[in-house]
């Protein structure tokens, strides 16, 4: 069969297409003028401008021209290659050419969207087009390589997103490793009483999922564990998980909690993390009643035996039957192989102490929304009673929204959930205490399904809304009714005056922020973070759960603040993306690997040590370097440093780049 790409001759016949992208390019770049310019360049046979090149007719235009004009090179000037290179390569291939005879010119993201001057932008488009036309001449037919994908998946983070992703994959028959840092899965949702806007019980919908993931035959659950090392690449990751010692053997513990009862500490003494410090626990404890797994653990910082080695070890006696307690337990490192990874590491709440004006930490009856959440929960420290620190019931309460959010001094983003979360808490507050509740807001954001209706319900239930960002919370009284109260000073921006409002309790709707160690996690999985510190998705619209690293997906609040339905939707999407890779079984690798022109290699070995993937070895017999293309990732470092110029890189050959340099500088 003859090679259609050459049409029987070695003559280069280039088709050039410039896309208007509607007004996106066309309004700033004079597309017909560029097409006119390129039509005169050597080798260009067809030069056209078209409204939307990525549309079906646009792609068919290329195929038709390949056929009619015997084209053997295609250049499209449109958007970023990261967006549509694949589209046009496929179109080129459908036209009967090797897809790598295609070159793309970015005149949207790098030109029309960032420049305003029509003449300058058009000149730049001409230069970039010229460069590609010169470059494409040196393109060669290439084949993509296929790399098999390991079918197992790692899910990092056992909040609602991680749980849902793991269950979805497990139900589809994929083997999943679910790693959670805390001693129990459940994340923030496990701490909630009810969920907006339906007011259904959070525990009732979460607990079944927690136990399902624990008992799922395809899911391996590792709590109290962290991923410490990730090596490899899409399809073939090698992950090291560190399991912290619980000092309790997980498989032997049945969760009877006899050991807790018999601890030498008769009364709970230490701040309870799950109840955000509102209650106490012992050195040996179970995080919360519905914890999964139902396994106790020992806090090494608090346990006398672990700390000093001097204790009566009453817990051991209580567990004499099962012998589950092991003071000599050590941390354990486990290595697993997976093909894809879903990161669902969640968020951290804003530290209200950072805004001293609101008096958190200074005035005891200023609480955060999460603290109130624990107070209203029937399984919480007060069994569902909302009480002030002195034990009395609050008669008035104020909710301050946007604490730490929408503020350039702290976090500039909107945390998205606090409006609804506060309204839910306000309704529960009223229900539990019959108090007079006021919400201080800047803007109410209730775009979710059923959320505006929920806002209306709040209004009708008599919750007051004052539009104004609270300036300060103080205990200094100016009027008799303010004595002994917390006074909120705020401008009621709708009524148009400043008000002082005395209340018994203040609830701070603290916003969400990236986890403290988001940067380390990002490095671990080779992801990117936005300026705010949230993990960056590959494309804000088209690839919301993908990252710039193939095979690593993100779900839930680690990507940005979101509510439970959105988190679950993302978790499902991430699981589907992972499955799409797994079920295809392989990935096609961009053929941008390096290769050696053996006769030119001088055998200096300088490349061997440079390669980060140990893809280069040295043949002692031949005294030449050898590149294992299966290991090569295509960075090109060896190419740039080869003193004899004997290493080349597919898709980024020296002459291709030199011609590109020449092209971008030849625009006058």
């Amino acid at each position, binding site marked *: 069969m003859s090679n259609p790409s050459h049409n029987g001759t070695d003559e280069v016949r280039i088709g050039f297409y410039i896309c208007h992208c509607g007004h996106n390019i066309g309004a700033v770049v004079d597309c017909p003028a560029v097409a006119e310019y390129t039509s005169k360049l050597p080798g260009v046979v067809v030069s056209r401008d078209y409204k939307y090149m990525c549309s079906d007719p646009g792609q068919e235009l290329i195929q038709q021209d390949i056929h009619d004009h015997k084209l053997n090179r295609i250049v499209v000037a449109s958007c970023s290659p990261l967006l549509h290179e694949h589209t046009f390569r496929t179109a080129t291939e459908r036209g009967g050419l090797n897809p790598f005879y295609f070159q793309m010119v970015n005149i949207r993201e790098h030109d029309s969207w960032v420049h305003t001057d029509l003449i300058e932008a058009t000149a730049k488009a001409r230069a970039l087009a010229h460069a590609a036309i010169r470059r494409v001449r040196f393109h060669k037919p290439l084949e993509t390589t296929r790399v098999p994908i390991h079918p197992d998946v790692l899910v990092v983070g056992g909040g609602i997103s991680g749980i849902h992703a793991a269950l979805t994959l497990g139900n589809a028959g994929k083997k999943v490793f679910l790693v959670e840092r805390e001693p129990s899965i459940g994340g923030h949702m496990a701490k909630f009483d009810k969920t907006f806007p339906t007011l259904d019980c959070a525990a009732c919908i979460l607990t079944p999922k927690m136990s399902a993931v624990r008992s799922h035959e395809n899911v391996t659950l590792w709590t109290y564990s962290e991923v410490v090392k990730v090596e490899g690449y899409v399809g073939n990751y090698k992950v090291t998980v560190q399991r912290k010692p619980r000092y309790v053997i997980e498989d032997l513990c049945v969760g009877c909690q006899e050991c807790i009862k018999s601890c030498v500490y008769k009364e709970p003494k230490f701040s309870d993390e799950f109840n955000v410090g509102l209650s106490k626990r012992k050195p040996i404890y179970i995080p919360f009643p519905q914890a999964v797994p139902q396994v106790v653990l020992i806090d090494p910082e608090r346990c006398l035996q672990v700390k000093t080695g001097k204790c009566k070890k009453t817990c051991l006696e209580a567990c004499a039957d099962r012998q589950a307690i092991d003071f000599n337990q050590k941390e354990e490192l486990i290595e697993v192989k997976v093909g894809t990874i879903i990161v669902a590491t969640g968020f951290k709440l804003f530290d209200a102490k950072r805004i001293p004006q609101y008096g958190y930490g200074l005035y005891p009856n200023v609480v955060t929304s999460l603290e109130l959440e624990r107070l209203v929960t029937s399984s919480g420290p007060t069994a569902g009673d909302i009480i002030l620190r002195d034990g009395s019931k609050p008669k008035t309460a104020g909710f301050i929204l946007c604490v730490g959010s929408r*503020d*350039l001094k702290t976090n500039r983003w909107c945390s998205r959930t606090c409006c609804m979360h506060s309204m839910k808490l306000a309704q529960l507050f009223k229900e539990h205490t019959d108090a007079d509740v006021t919400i201080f807001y800047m803007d109410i954001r209730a775009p979710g399904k059923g959320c505006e209706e929920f806002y209306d319900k709040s209004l009708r239930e008599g919750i007051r809304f004052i*539009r*104004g*960002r609270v*300036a300060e919370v103080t205990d200094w009284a100016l009027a008799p009714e303010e004595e002994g109260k917390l006074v909120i000073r*705020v*401008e009621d921006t709708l009524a*148009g005056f*400043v008000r002082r409002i005395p209340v018994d309790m203040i609830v701070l709707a603290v916003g969400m922020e990236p986890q403290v160690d988001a940067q380390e996690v990002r490095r671990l999985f080779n992801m990117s973070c936005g300026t705010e510190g949230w993990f960056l998705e590959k494309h804000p619209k088209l690839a919301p759960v993908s990252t710039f690293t193939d095979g690593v997906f993100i779900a839930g609040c680690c990507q940005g603040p979101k509510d439970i339905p959105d988190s679950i939707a993302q978790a499902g999407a991430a699981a589907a993306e992972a499955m799409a890779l797994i079920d295809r079984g392989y990935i096609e690798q961009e053929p941008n690997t390096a290769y050696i022109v053996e006769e030119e290699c001088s055998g200096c070995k300088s490349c061997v040590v440079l390669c980060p993937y140990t893809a280069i070895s040295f043949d002692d017999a031949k005294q030449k370097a050898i590149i294992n293309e299966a290991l090569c990732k295509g960075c090109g470092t060896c190419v740039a440093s080869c003193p004899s110029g004997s290493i080349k890189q597919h898709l980024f050959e020296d002459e291709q780049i030199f011609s590109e340099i020449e092209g971008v500088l030849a625009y006058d």
Partner: protein
Amino acid sequence: MVEAHMMKIKRTIKYDADRVGGFGREIMSVAGCDQLPSCIQCGTCSGTCPLTIYMDFSPRQVMALVRADFKNEVLRSNTIWLCASCYSCTVECPRQIRITDIMYALKQRAIKEQVYPKHMPIPILAKEFAKMVLSKGRITETLLVMQLFLRANWRAVLSSWRLGLGLITTGRFVIKPERIERQAELDAMLATITNGNGKGKA
């Protein structure tokens, strides 16, 4: 009908003709005032301001008025003159708008256009203060206060006489005018800018 005819009513609806196009942009172009476009009208400035109780427009409203080109309303308001430059609003603003600086820009503009409220002594103090610094390089508080009260509110001089006496007897107020030695140097410096409004008159 007759009564209705007698009733004096104030028009509150604003027409577009009441605006002075470009005013907002001019203020925002003053050094330090460029953050104003991002105001979200949250009211933190008003809430934190210790003087809102006396203001005809709250600081937040002033921001809205500037942005909407209501020049006459803003320059005639007492708000800009009541601002004590305590910078609470500037420090608290979630959009980092330098509200105090905007107030300064508005004060400068009001003095330049002579549209400040008639019975407010503050603009006069500012001008007298500036004049004294220009001519002597330093401030002698006694003289300043005297001049101020004489111009704005001579009755106040009588009501404050006890304080003045106390200050002089405790040795904390001097009547002998202070001045710097190298006045010419200061004059030369200020002569380098032509837009000064005090120099010509002083």
